[in-house]
């Protein structure tokens, strides 16, 4: 096995290193029937997303057309070809949140972050997604950032929330709640 070097400045493993690790994963799986989806899942866990370089390597090694591998990745929503940011912002658009301004909140996040749903900011700090109900309907509209639920979010205050994460400080007054309450 290749010994894995980590990046000196942030302790993260570089993508090139991960591609080498992917070789090992592929070596173990290449002759198995139906290996594509499990390999994609492992790769996504390794990289945090599915970079094109990894997909091409997977296609080549498993002897599948790249178009087919891409087709499978695009078919299942749990696969992502976008790198995930450090913080994952999920704006709830469940019925309650939607009618109480969730859409405006989402719009505000898009504007402030300068990205669309499914994208990641260039500095890789934030990814933006839409969710359907965290079970926090009583205090809609809700936004989940990483593991924190923010409730009664106002579109006008979105900038502040983002700044707090940018500075790596968690907001003081927010109650955290486990997913799936109620």
């Amino acid at each position, binding site marked *: 096995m290749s010994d894995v070097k980590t990046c000196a400045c942030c302790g993260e493993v570089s993508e090139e290193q991960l591609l080498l690790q992917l070789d090992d994963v592929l070596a173990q799986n290449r002759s198995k029937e139906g290996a594509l989806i499990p390999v994609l899942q492992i790769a996504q866990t390794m990289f945090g997303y599915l970079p094109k370089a990894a997909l091409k390597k997977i296609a080549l090694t498993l002897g599948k057309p790249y178009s087919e591998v*891409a087709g499978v990745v695009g*078919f299942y929503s749990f696969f992502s070809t976008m790198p995930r940011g450090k913080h994952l912002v999920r704006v709830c658009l469940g019925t309650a949140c939607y009618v109480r301004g969730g859409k405006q909140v989402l719009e505000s996040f898009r504007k402030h972050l300068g990205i669309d749903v499914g994208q990641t900011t260039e500095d890789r700090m934030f990814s933006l997604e839409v969710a359907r109900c965290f079970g926090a309907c009583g205090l809609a509209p809700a936004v989940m950032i990483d593991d924190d639920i923010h409730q009664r979010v106002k579109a006008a205050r979105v900038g502040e929330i983002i700044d707090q994460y940018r500075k790596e400080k968690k907001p003081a007054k927010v109650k955290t709640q486990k997913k799936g309450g109620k």
Partner: protein
Amino acid sequence: MKLTINAISVEVPEGTTILAAAAQAGIKIPTLCHLEGVQSIGACRVCLVEVEGAKTLVASCVMPVMEGMKVYTNTKRVREARRMVVEMLLSEHDGNCQTCNRNNDCELQSVAFDLGITDITYQGVKGRNEVDASTPALVRDNGKCIKCRRCVTVCTQVQAVGALFPQFRGFKTVIGPAFNSDLADVSCVQCGQCAAVCPVGAIVENSHIERVWAAIEHPSKTVVVQTAPAVRAALGECFGNPPGTLVTGKMVAALRRMGFDVIFDTNFTADLTIIEEGMELLKRLTTAVRDKQPVALPQFTSCSPGWIKFAETYYPEFIPNLSTCKSPQQMFGAIAKTYWAKKAGKDPKNVYVVSIMPCVAKKFEAQRPEMDDSGFVDIDAVLTTRELGRMIRQAGIDFNALPDEDYDRILGTSTGAADIFANTGGVMEAALRTAYEVITGRNLPFEELHVTPLAGLEGIKKAAMTITGTLPEYSFLEGVVLKVAVVHALGNAKRIIEEIKNGEIYHFVEVMTCPGGCIGGGGQPRLTDNEKRKKRIEAIYKEDEGKKLRKSHDNPKIKQIYGEFLNMPLGKTSHHLLHTEYIKRERV
């Protein structure tokens, strides 16, 4: 098995589909995704029929017959269901028949007509029409795609390329390259078999019609046209003639009336290819057998540009095995702008060379950057058989009423060996006709010179021949068993290469990209099935047998060009003008 279809009794073998049984009974069931022998997936739902006792309508292309089955293909329920399916397709179809490349040649259009659709009840959201014109050979338009998947199956299973696949899901689904990127960004080999099977205008050739008209009308250009052997056996279909109608003379007459200045035949350079490629093979055999030196064998033929790109991409380790001969199309361009231009007193700068090809990959080949050995771009424009058909209509020519006319002189003279370049097994047979005679001084020992084991539509054909009675200079080949193989469709090319990698020995392998060879090319009139392939091949053999000269080395004009210009096969001028090199390509 016995069953009735619309009360007509039919008897078919077990495993036959209802669709096939109906065809046998002379009943046409419409379909938009079925491709005989290639794809039966029941995806388009147009082939629905009613089976007595079954609750729902069934897709006849995937449903096998059963003993005593009673099938109805023309009930009100069936008609309404089919109509609804097609109306749904049309409601999402972002097309406009009047301005579409497929107008009058479209399966969706004709199915809609046959079903009597006069109004579309549904208001669907149109697909995104993103036009991908990134490649030299093809244009894709997702807005017209009906997601029948024929292209996917052909590209993946027949051609072993897999450039196309359904991307994304639900309403966003598009049939295209990975992540719906441009075709130019993936390893598509430009064969155009996708365009040949697409029922609609979602994948078509990149048209050169306008630039050819412009050249014809240009005051100082001399427009020279060459016609590939396979075109003459299929062009007639564009004008309602049955498959296999030979229209060589009418085609020449039409080209002359359209305003082309000089009408030549790619057959001439097909004969030239045989001389060069045959001598190249003998050279390789000499190196291997007499000199016992390492040399790349088998030699693969190189006239099929889709195959060349396939080898460059998927099997670059076999690049040394590819014959260095350019394809006849490219040899023609290089000769027309040098030898012929000089003879005719033309400035090659003003010579515009157009090819009529059964192929779309020839459009790709013509723009390969190295194809300028004449000092100019060797080939200026490439038209498919279908495009020529359209241009003849545009010119208002009544094709079927034309007289037969002859090609112009020098580059219009050819032998029967050149005609058979059009079909699988033909290049091999033509090469053997010449090589055998060079080695032994005798005729190839086959009736009518046809190497029967190498003819026909089987995907991989093999033959072994013991060489005896050699002439003195080739005595080192005495008793050598010459092993050859012929494959068509790239999936079969892949199979033979895997065999070779596993140690199987061949000396010479012919590869044609398209099923059946060029007669089944990506630029031929649609829809090519095996019946049509057979008919077109029969026509080509008839053309061959009808010629006085049947062997390339007997072509007097070939002798003349070596005498006046090329000097000798594989010589310096040949090397410069008629041979080429290949590049390794990244596989995506």
